């Protein structure tokens, strides 16, 4: 073995399984594994890492980075569990009484997350003048009231704070004096752009998620120590690039859609195609995305999680309630939306349970086989084939929608549930790449670093202003460790502000590049 060889480990901590891959400098997968996700998170994490290291027979000192993606935060929101109760402090001196906090949220999340809301003096006009100045005693009273109402975490949201963050920062200092330096705080200007409702939602969810990330994820550093791994531990964020684990613990909302991003990028790199549709079939759901020029296409519409509107960029994903563990009605053949999820090994008919799942249906249809089954499912082969046909049609329809009429795109199937539907059933462009079941962990291992330049500028000298911001974005990526000749612009968003003096616009430029670990 080449003494100069360096390796990285990519990990995906999902709701059901923790997947790991060990890759070399040429991004080749040397070892991979899939273990059940443990309730404490770090035990499964440790087992997965240990397994790939031992299988590959690599010395820990040759592992240069552990890169992780997780759907943990997403699942916490979808299931409404492990969330802090959040008190909301609105710095809006004009008192917007027609917009209650959490309006339109699903009841489960309102009940689990919202402790209370206090609207007090503060806020800015669009040109930077204050609406009203901050009133320190008023801030004190409001914070105490929120604490009394059971707030375990505070979200501070000021009108036009993306233009001037000083009021949010001042209110945060008062909160730290009152509650201690480590009390969970979310400042909206760090999390979102113009759009009060969506930015408030983002800040509240971020505050709520600080609980789930602090449980189990802080221990991961100790796991690396115990395994003699002296390398950085980074985590993928929404756009597929890396942040430190500490940053992910402080800003958990940034990790929300890293899961699909990783599996889309992983699938693309496993197949070698720069443009492809990806179909990720999991235990409960199927996510379909579109990789263009090597990056998952951004959603062009409002993004949301669990029914709550957010406003930061997320990959364009169509999610179907269709997975290996999805329940199939033995009479009508209807698939899902309920699923046995991670209890498939006890609840599915094939393993001695009572539930007819898509997994059982695939077995009965005959194209798929599996060791360790306890009994054959009770449905007929014809019925099973019909159900699989329906599943295929749902996927084909969504793929057509996602590809928008583009023909001849490779359609890559990844995820544990991909084995259940044969590419022959689906169509000529469907492929099952090698290592398809750990595409998400592979995507994590491939994560690039990004640089972002995000500023409200005047469009009076459009080209000059844009050039300057582009340079800043390149430098930001280089600062994160990106190799100069791999840095490229992956996204430019220009949002002009109509009718505001000086033709202001928000410009966001994102660059990405490969890091030499």
């Amino acid at each position, binding site marked *: 073995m080449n003494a100069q060889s360096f390796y990285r480990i990519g990990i995906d901590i999902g709701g059901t399984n923790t997947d790991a891959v060990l890759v070399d400098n040429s991004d080749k997968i040397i070892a991979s594994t899939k273990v059940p996700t443990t309730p404490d998170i770090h035990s499964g994490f440790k087992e997965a890492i240990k397994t790939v290291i031992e299988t590959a027979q690599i010395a820990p000192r040759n592992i240069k980075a552990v890169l992780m993606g997780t759907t943990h935060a997403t699942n916490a929101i979808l299931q409404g569990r492990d969330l802090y109760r959040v008190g909301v402090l609105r710095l*809006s001196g*004009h*008192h*917007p*009484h*027609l*917009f*209650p906090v959490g*309006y*339109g949220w699903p009841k489960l999340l309102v009940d689990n997350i919202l402790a209370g809301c206090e609207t007090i003096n503060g*806020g800015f*006009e*669009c*040109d930077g*003048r204050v*609406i009203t100045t901050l009133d320190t005693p008023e801030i004190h009273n409001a914070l105490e009231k929120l604490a009394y109402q059971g707030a375990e975490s505070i979200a501070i949201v000021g*009108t*036009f704070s993306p233009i001037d963050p000083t009021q949010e920062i001042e209110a945060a200092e008062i909160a730290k004096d009152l509650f201690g330096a480590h009390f969970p705080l979310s400042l909206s200007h760090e999390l979102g752009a*113009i*759009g*009060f*409702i969506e930015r408030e939602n983002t800040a509240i969810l971020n505050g709520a998620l600080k609980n789930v990330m602090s449980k189990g994820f802080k221990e991961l550093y100790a796991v690396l120590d115990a395994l003699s791994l002296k390398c950085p531990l980074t985590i993928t964020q929404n756009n597929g690039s890396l942040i430190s684990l500490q940053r992910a613990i402080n800003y958990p909302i940034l990790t929300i859609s890293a899961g699909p991003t990783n599996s889309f990028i992983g699938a693309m790199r496993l197949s070698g195609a720069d443009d492809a549709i990806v179909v990720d079939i999991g235990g409960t759901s199927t996510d379909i995305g579109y990789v263009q020029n090597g990056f998952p*296409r951004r959603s*062009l*519409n*409002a993004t949301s999680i669990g029914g709550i509107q957010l406003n930061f960029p997320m990959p364009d994903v169509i999610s179907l309630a269709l997975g290996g563990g999805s329940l199939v009605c033995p009479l009508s053949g209807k698939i899902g939306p309920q699923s046995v999820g991670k209890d498939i090994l006890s609840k599915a008919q094939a393993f001695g349970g009572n539930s007819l799942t898509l997994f059982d249906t695939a077995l009965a249809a005959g194209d798929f086989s599996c060791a360790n089954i306890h009994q054959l499912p009770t449905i007929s082969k014809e019925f099973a084939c019909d159900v699989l046909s329906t599943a295929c049609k749902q996927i084909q329809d969504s793929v057509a*929608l996602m590809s*928008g009429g583009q023909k001849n795109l490779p359609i890559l199937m990844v995820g544990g549930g991909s084995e259940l539907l044969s590419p022959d059933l689906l169509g000529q462009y469907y492929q099952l790449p090698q290592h398809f079941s750990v595409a998400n962990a592979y995507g994590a291992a491939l994560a690039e670093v990004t640089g972002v330049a995000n500023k409200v500028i005047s*469009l*009076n000298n*459009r080209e000059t202003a844009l050039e300057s911001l582009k340079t800043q974005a390149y430098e930001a990526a280089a600062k994160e460790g990106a190799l100069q000749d791999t840095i490229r612009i992956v996204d430019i*968003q*220009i*949002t*002009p*502000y*109509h*009718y*505001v*003096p000086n*033709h202001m*616009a928000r410009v966001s430029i994102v660059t990405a590049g490969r890091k030499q670990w």
Partner: protein
Amino acid sequence: MHQFQIDDLNDLALGCTLLGSGGGGDPRYELIMTRCAMEQGKSVNILSIDELSKDDLIIPVAYMGAPLVSLEKLPTGREFLPIFDMIEKHAGRAPTALIAFEIGGSNALCPLMLAAQLGLPVVDGDLLGRAFPKVYMTSCEVNGITASPAFLGDVMGNSVQVQANHSFALENLCRAMTVEMGSSCALALYLMDGEQAKQAIISGSISQALSIGRALAGNVPIQEAVVQSCGGSFIAQGMLMDVQQEVKDGFLMGKALLETQVGTICIDYQNEYLLAYCENQVLAVTPDIIALIDTESRLPITSDNLKYGMRLSLFSIPSPAIWKTEAGLKLVGPEAFNYHINHENLRIA
């Protein structure tokens, strides 16, 4: 008179967005405010134009300024309270009904949001039948109703009464005041009695917007839905390849390029989509309403929400008849926006 149902708000907002011809702002926030106002407040009644009389004092209402600002400094309706005090002092009597200034875009919901708080009815109609950039581009202007006095108010309780000798001057004075009030404020102008309203407004706007919205939200194929609900015609569909903005004459002018099977279609806008053309061939032009509808979601897209890569269907919808008269065309026809069209060929100044 009939009661407006809260459940119809979503469809109304959809129809209003289409009638906005790309302008008027995305109504998604006003929709929430109006829904809240109606849930918390009084029921909202819609009056037909036939029910009006000389004893009525009709107030056209709108928010003026940057749509961006209302995304942050959320509107409340309280901006209108100082205005209504001033109006009563000026007219010597209380307002009896509200009407939307423009049915295109988020401003269409403004009278409903106010009505739920003030307990006044809303006339089924508006002054534009769509959205346009300037306050004097109204059916009232064509029909000889004066815009002045106009009233502006902000949420901190400030109010201004403006008397201008010409509508063009009023537009400039109001804009200046709006900037001072934080680039968004409440506006009431073109006050009318019931008889004047019968002559000067565009009737049935709320009903029409609602039926368009229901068609968009329904299951009928989109082209059929637009044809049936508002007599629109489908022009082409394709992908948005480029969106350019530039400053000209104090306005933010935009150009969107749609790559379609018939070629590259350019859509010119000043907030509102005003002209669609392909290689100097005019496909649609003001005063007709131009709609860009997302092919997948069936949502009409406003000009401030256009993004690279969107898949859009382009439609042209006939404007209210008043805009096709000589006086109407002078205000809002192609020449008014510096588009010179000769036998369907195009020259842009």
